[in-house]
């Protein structure tokens, strides 16, 4: 018996039990679809996150407090640290420094009330974050010095509070009840790795610190540093470390701060999303396994039902291997059909998830890679083969006389 013949016969016999074959295939379809969709969504999410991190700019450094647990007396990052880093003599590779504090507070106008991210920032923040303005101006040095009650708002805030995006200069909004005058509206950014970047209100750092976001000792949440150019990122990082070690007196021990470059973030995000993808894919693979057990079950039933047929085939000259091939072909075909349909279904699911995400302003383009397709096909066929081996062996090892006597 050649393989072509075996396949035709297998299709005929699967066809004779359409309902049963269909349900068995369904088990594999769901498993494969889950694997494909999870992998696609996972790698789509990875692309989105790394993409939005890359969008930050390759010459950016983030300075956070914290680090090793061994530090005896960890010091917070302060406004003073930021000013020291900004010193062109101590840190010649640093171009701009932007300290940052932030908190989620309620913003109201008229009857509308929303919760937004209130950021205390300095004028440098505009350039460091590559922001641009739809209208008006960003926070100026005078605003900082005067602790002015002025705000530069994101479009989501504009939409929700005013229902428009222009002609807002001079309007007043209240943050935690305190009045602020709108002096600018930011160009929309869309969703990103750090949540919506449009639901924000930027106010002068000094104002935030003194009136809204109380932090002891001039503390900042983090400091954004822009290096002179991409090549000087590492050198800038080194200079910042020197300055902070001196100021925090941790020259000898471990650092009480951490500096991340864009690449560090990308690497971290990638490893997190990879773990996530593997985790999701693993869970999906379990359902594929369950589908495989379904195949085994149905093949065992089929062997029992067709014991007489197997006996007859042996009586007219079928060898063990012929029977083995016959049943393995059937189980592999089941899983292969399931695999192909599952790839299609998984692809559709991933696509729909992508549509839902973009409808919610989150850019997520699921990626169905060739590797995922290959993996799913090979894996599902292997499942069919593996779970088919036991029933097929059982059939092949039947003694012809006993099989023929079977009712």
């Amino acid at each position: 018996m050649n393989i072509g013949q075996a396949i035709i016969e297998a299709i005929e016999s699967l066809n004779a039990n359409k309902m049963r074959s269909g349900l068995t295939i369904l088990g594999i379809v769901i498993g494969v679809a889950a694997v494909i969709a999870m992998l696609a969504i996972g790698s789509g999410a990875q692309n989105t996150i790394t993409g939005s991190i890359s969008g930050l700019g390759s010459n950016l450094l983030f300075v956070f407090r914290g680090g090793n647990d061994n530090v005896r007396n960890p010091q917070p990052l302060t406004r003073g640290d930021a000013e020291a880093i900004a010193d062109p003599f101590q840190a010649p590779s640093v171009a701009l420094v932007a300290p940052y504090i932030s908190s989620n507070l309620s913003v109201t106008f008229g009857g509308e009330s929303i919760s937004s991210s209130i950021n205390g920032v300095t004028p440098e923040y505009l350039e460091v974050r590559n922001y641009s303005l739809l209208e008006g101006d960003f926070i100026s040095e005078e605003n900082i010095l005067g602790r002015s009650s002025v705000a530069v708002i994101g479009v989501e805030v504009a939409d929700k509070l005013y229902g428009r995006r222009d002609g807002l200069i001079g309007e007043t909004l209240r943050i935690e009840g305190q009045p602020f005058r709108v002096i600018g509206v930011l160009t929309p950014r869309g969703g990103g790795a750090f949540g919506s970047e449009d639901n924000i209100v930027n106010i002068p750092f000094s104002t935030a610190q003194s009136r809204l976001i109380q932090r002891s000792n001039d503390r900042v949440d983090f400091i954004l540093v822009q290096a002179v150019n991409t090549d000087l990122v590492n050198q800038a990082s080194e200079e910042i470390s020197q300055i902070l070690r001196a100021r925090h007196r941790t020259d000898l021990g471990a650092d009480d701060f951490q500096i991340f470059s864009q690449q560090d973030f990308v690497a971290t995000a990638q490893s997190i999303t990879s773990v996530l993808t593997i985790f999701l894919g693993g869970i999906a693979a379990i359902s594929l396994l369950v589908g495989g057990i379904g195949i085994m079950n149905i093949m065992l039933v089929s062997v029992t039902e067709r014991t007489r047929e197997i006996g007859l085939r042996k009586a007219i000259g079928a060898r063990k291997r012929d029977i083995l091939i016959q049943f393995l072909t059937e189980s592999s075909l089941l899983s292969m059909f399931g695999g192909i349909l599952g790839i299609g279904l998984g692809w559709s699911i991933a696509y729909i998830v992508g549509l839902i995400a973009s409808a919610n302003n989150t850019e997520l383009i699921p990626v169905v890679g060739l590797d995922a397709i290959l993996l799913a096909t090979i894996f599902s066929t292997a499942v069919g083969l593996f779970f088919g081996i036991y029933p097929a062996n059982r059939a092949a090892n039947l003694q012809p006389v006993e099989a023929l006597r079977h009712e």
Partner: protein
Amino acid sequence: MNDWVIETRNLKKFYKMGEIEVRALDGVDLNIERGSIVSIMGPSGSGKSTLMNLLGCLDRPTEGDYILDGVQVSQMNDDQLAAARNHLVGFVFQSFNLLSRQTALANVELPLRYGGITNGRKQKAIEALTAVGLGDRVTHRPTELSGGQQQRVAIARALINDPAIIMADEPTGNLDSKSGKEIMDLILSLNKTRKTTIIIVTHDQNIARQTQRIINLSDGKVVGEEVPE
């Protein structure tokens, strides 16, 4: 010198049923001449089917020698047994044993497939079906055929590889007397025209009398032979 197609020496088949040993065949010595037609008779449980299964290479004896067409069967491995069933033996069962989803043609072709023959299968199968008088039923499935016709398909299947011997275990047992007689006539004519050796197990004296030699079995032993006139 006789030309034996089958020789058995002290052939035994025991079944262990717990403590009890069932001696289904208890030392059978049998020679069957090539080209002859032989019937085996005996009461129910006397070991007729057991003997047929051994002679048809469907089972292995517990003890004894069996030489089929000059080859020691007792020493064959599984694949060689399968090949012997395919080439040397054609089986006709009481209950037809056709594949119900396949056409008559496909059923008859099946031994050729397992025999690894790739060319002219269809042609040969049609010839075999024509030889049993079913040339106009090749695309019918077993459910679309009468019992007698189904047994004809089974005979065509047994014939297709030109076996040295055809074993028929109560081939007319499931048929009414009219189609039973037709099947017997067909089997007898195969023996005449093709010179195929045929062994028939039967309970029917009338059928047995049409053969050249009747072997009587009782309690797993050959207890007598007669030659009908």
